[in-house]
């Protein structure tokens, strides 16, 4: 490629008027060794662009990010809950001994007896009160002298 042509292209290049093909020609020219001395600064420019294009992304790309999984935690919690309920209900039944059972039945009988006594006495009292009421009615009849 003759120098005049390159200079021409460079001017177009500065004005951003070159096509990609023309820029490829320039890149090719400046990749060679015999570059005209007054164009050396362009060589740095195009060398830089070529080098930069070689730069690669070397790290790996994780597509699936690890998210902490807590689904097992709910299972563990429910298991703990069930075990604790089972254990506590079991221990409650275990604590009642035969002696205690007897005592409790005795207490139940005593209480029932006491209630029965109370209700019998209340019944008596009730009859007396009703008899009193009829007395009250007689007196009322006397006072108001009903037609009867």
């Amino acid at each position: 490629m003759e120098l005049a042509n390159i200079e021409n292209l460079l001017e177009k290049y500065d004005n951003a008027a070159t096509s990609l093909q023309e820029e490829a020609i320039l890149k090719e020219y400046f990749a060679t060794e015999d570059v005209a001395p007054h164009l050396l600064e362009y060589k740095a420019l195009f060398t830089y662009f070529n080098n930069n294009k070689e730069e690669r992304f070397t790290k790996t790309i994780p597509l699936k990010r690890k998210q902490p999984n807590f689904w097992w935690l709910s299972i563990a919690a429910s298991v703990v809950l069930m075990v604790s309920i089972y254990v506590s209900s079991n221990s409650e039944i275990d604590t009642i001994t035969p002696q205690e059972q007897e005592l409790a039945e005795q207490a139940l009988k005593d209480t029932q007896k006491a209630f029965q006594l109370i209700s019998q006495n209340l019944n008596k009292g009730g009859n007396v009160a009703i008899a009193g009421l009829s007395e009250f009615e007689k007196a009322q009849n006397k006072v108001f002298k009903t037609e009867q």
Partner: protein
Amino acid sequence: MKQTEFLNTVLPLKDKVYRLAKRLLVSRDEAEDATQELYFKLWKNKKKLKDYKNVEAFAMTMTKNYCLDQLKAKRSNNLTLVHSNYKDGNISLQKEMELKDSVSKVHELIATLPEKQKMIIQLRDVENYEFEEIGKILDLQPTAVRVALSRARKTIREQLTKQHNYGIS
């Protein structure tokens, strides 16, 4: 979009995504993190991906938006030095050293450009996109891309010429 399709269409873009991210975020670590994050996002949206006609342009736009957001979030001034391996030519040693210096100078010069010009230089001169594609990626008119690119190229060239004429201090 199935996994194989994703691997065939989107994964090959990873270097371009990484290079654009690095151009904007400067630091290598941040660019790597950004790339991983972007691929995670793309993978999550893989069902929507096939609705886009141009997956590549879409991925590059996403990269641009993500990186600009990152920059906005913490106007980070931590310009970590970037290591680049330049290939050895067969030029004499001194010339080679000079060239190496000016090649890394180019990197510094691009780093001083505004973000839009940085992206355009990256997409055009490194990734060789057409103006229409760059316009699509950056949401600009092709003529606007051209103007910004010309401005960026001229800035770099002027700085390089200055340095070339005065010699390297």
